[in-house]
């Protein structure tokens, strides 16, 4: 396979010195990028260029570069993780862009995710939601044999669909209300589907939703934008299950 070469690209990138500073777009030119280069490798090339000009490179979050750690983010040409479907930014490749194109790169925009520097945002709010109850309360040791409780294949598969969430925040960044419902529902749904998680399902749904609300995420108005931009295609059906679980929990009160 021989990839095309993009002779010249214009990059408009959000630069912001720190959380308190005022940010703005800077424009850069980059030349001769192979279509087989990943988007983040393209930013690596830009950063090498900036270092050679004795300028400060663009700060962006990334780690595994295999689409699974959830560390990378970026709003690219107005879309979370860029124009390709079902990929994170680190798995987006330059063959998706045209030669001569102008590419706009911004951080996630959400009040709950403040910018730390350039394209890096603080996603601690997600941590706090999970700390509120996104787990099964078991202690190490003293658990039954793995095969003691059968789990229907379909339930396990559906739980796995939900559990595939990588916690990147694309759903929040995409939602016009900055709602975290898809993120919260993925965890609530995964654990509610499994017998191991059912025991405290009500408490979990209540606690996680309450924390989400406290942290300033917006309401869900069922636009479905989150699902369409989710790199792992987490379905909004999980939001429906979260709503059911939440309602059940409220009725139990």
């Amino acid at each position: 396979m021989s990839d095309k070469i993009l002779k010249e690209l214009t990059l408009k990138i959000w630069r912001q010195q720190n959380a308190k500073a005022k940010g703005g777009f800077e424009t850069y030119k980059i030349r001769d990028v192979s279509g087989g280069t990943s988007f983040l490798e393209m930013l690596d090339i830009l950063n090498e260029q900036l270092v050679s000009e004795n300028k400060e490179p663009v700060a962006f979050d990334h780690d595994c570069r295999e689409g699974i750690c959830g560390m990378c983010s970026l709003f690219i040409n107005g879309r979370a993780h860029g124009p390709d479907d079902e990929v994170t930014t680190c798995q987006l490749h330059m063959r998706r862009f045209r030669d001569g194109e102008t590419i706009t790169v911004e951080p996630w925009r959400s009040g709950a995710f403040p910018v730390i520097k350039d394209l890096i945002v603080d996603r601690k709010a997600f941590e706090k939601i999970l700390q509120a109850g996104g787990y099964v309360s078991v202690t190490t040791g003293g658990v039954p044999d793995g095969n003691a409780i059968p789990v229907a294949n379909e339930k396990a598969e559906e739980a796995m669909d939900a559990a595939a969430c990588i916690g990147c925040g694309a759903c929040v960044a995409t939602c016009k209300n900055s709602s975290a419902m898809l993120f919260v529902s993925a965890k609530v749904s995964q654990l509610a589907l499994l017998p191991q998680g059912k025991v405290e399902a009500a408490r979990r749904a209540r606690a996680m939703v309450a924390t989400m609300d406290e942290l300033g995420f917006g309401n869900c108005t069922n636009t479905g934008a989150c699902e369409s931009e989710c790199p792992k295609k987490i379905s909004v059906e999980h939001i429906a299950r979260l709503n059911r679980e939440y309602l059940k929990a409220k009725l139990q009160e």
Partner: protein
Amino acid sequence: MNKLNAKIPEGSLGEKWSNHKAHIGVVSPANKRKLDVIVVGTGLAGGSAAASLAELGYNVLSFCYQDSPRRAHSIAAQGGINAAKNYQNDNDSVYRLFYETIKGGDYRAREANVYRLAEVSGAIIDQCVAQGVPFARDYGGLLDNRSFGGALVSRTFYARGQTGQQLLLGCYGALNRQIKNGGVKVYSRHEVLDIVVIDGKARGVIARDLVTGKIERFGAHAVVLATGGYGNVFFLSTNAMGCNVSAAWQAYKRGAFFGNPCFVQIHPTCIPVHGDQQSKLTLMSESLRNDGRVWVPKKKEDAEKLQAGTLAPNDIPDAERDFYLERRYPAFGNLVPRDVASRAAKERCDAGFGVNNTGKAVFLDFKYAIDRLGEETIRKRYGNLFQMYEKITAVNPYKNPMMIYPAIHYSMGGLWVDYNLMTTIPGLYAIGECNFSDHGANRLGASALMQGLADGYFILPYTIGDYLAKEIQTPRVKTDAPEFEEAENRVTGRLRALYDIKGTKSPDHFHKHLGHVMWDHVGMARDAAGLKEALRAIEELKKEFYRDLRVTGDFTAMNNELEKAGRVADFFELASLMTRDALERAESCGGHFRLESVTEEGEARRDDDLFRFVAAWEYKGEEAEPALHKEALAYENIQIAQRSYK
């Protein structure tokens, strides 16, 4: 004084761990509250250790360089986790898992440690199921298994191609529960850059807050390193971009011995390198070798046409395909261990049979499995991996064979630890990939997850109690001690020295060059001449690094370049030690292949008379040569033999 006391308990192999647990110290609940433990790293080993220690009642301080514990690179493990459950009734047992792990490691791992690993493996699965890990299940609702390389039974548990992710999220859940309960405080976006030793004991760490750039001190009664592997010394690897050796390396410089640094694993099934601006390599899970057949053309002219792009792989008839793993290793076929599969691919490519434009790729073909099982079954088993492959290469692997090539993946070497997982610095522990202990010279697939969780859930929480039971009189460690001051100054001085060079080349520039040297001379095939050349080239490049490095940005602020510079500086020093170790070990074993030591058939030839030991290196100072200590390996329960997968 012999510092290399592995402290293997008395008794028969099957009794050692039980005996040991029965006789080691235990800290009372009231005293646990008064004891602080630092855990560096939040992958499967660090995350499970931090959660389990907090559940016991210790105060845990947990560190990770990422923005969340959930991002640690265990998350990228795809294929599965081994456990000797014998759910398949295929005659699996603790002994068989133990035996296959020792054999897979080419008889360079410690018997007692590996047996214990096999013993606790079953409990890991139980624990993960209880946490809500959605393992694959059969239609009866019971746990499903798949096969992995180097094993004659099916003992690998999996959650699609995202097993590492699911296990890590389970353990992250346990960690979150303890954070909420106040038992763990997490310091994310913090990089640990030194270990503080007071009166010979590990008493804390120095960390850099990656957001503010401030250097901070943290004290504790014990320190646990769970910082993963050092594959990034090769620049291109399957490791995450941030994976580094820095905390482990500083531990080495403070007195912890480094075990078998030359033992690194080259994974046979990675997406081939596409160009010189590539930043990392992507793994295609070993589980694919369950259903994929590895081949290159039989005829060189076909290979040349593939390289030139004038022949399509599907146009080569079966009779003209060389399924070289099945041909060379009929007993294990495509499921030979990783080191064997990697070398076989290199052998074919070096002989001119590579199948892409660089000549450095072989085919992994699913046509046969799709013909037999249907596309839907294959999609169910490997859908996400196939999707990832297509996104990266723009080739549809349902229609065309995948192209793969070996890449650096895992470090079997690491900090030397005794049976308690304690390094040669009292109170400093190393767990998971960070230590050297369980995989010998080659790790079997799906055993890294097993070891990380075994160490963190079921071994360290017991063994650290033995040490801490003697520390209950020690008050909270204050960070105003002169040793903390000295360590902080050392860290600041080291970073400042890098920052002040004000040269012209980025840290990445040097890292890439170092990677080339390591891959060329300390990679899949090594010989004395090449290793000596590597030592010279590393020194030369290191001098240039300290003369011409450029670190842009502010010193006391978020600065990715400064982070990278510090990591590369440590990789340079590690690279020398790895090369020295590889030179010293003039035998082939596991992932370490010395061209001088092969059988007539071209297979690796171990030399048990001269090299049946763990090489534990002691730091002797900046200018001095490191000292080699040897821990002899005794095999009392296994008949030691040349490994054969034929």
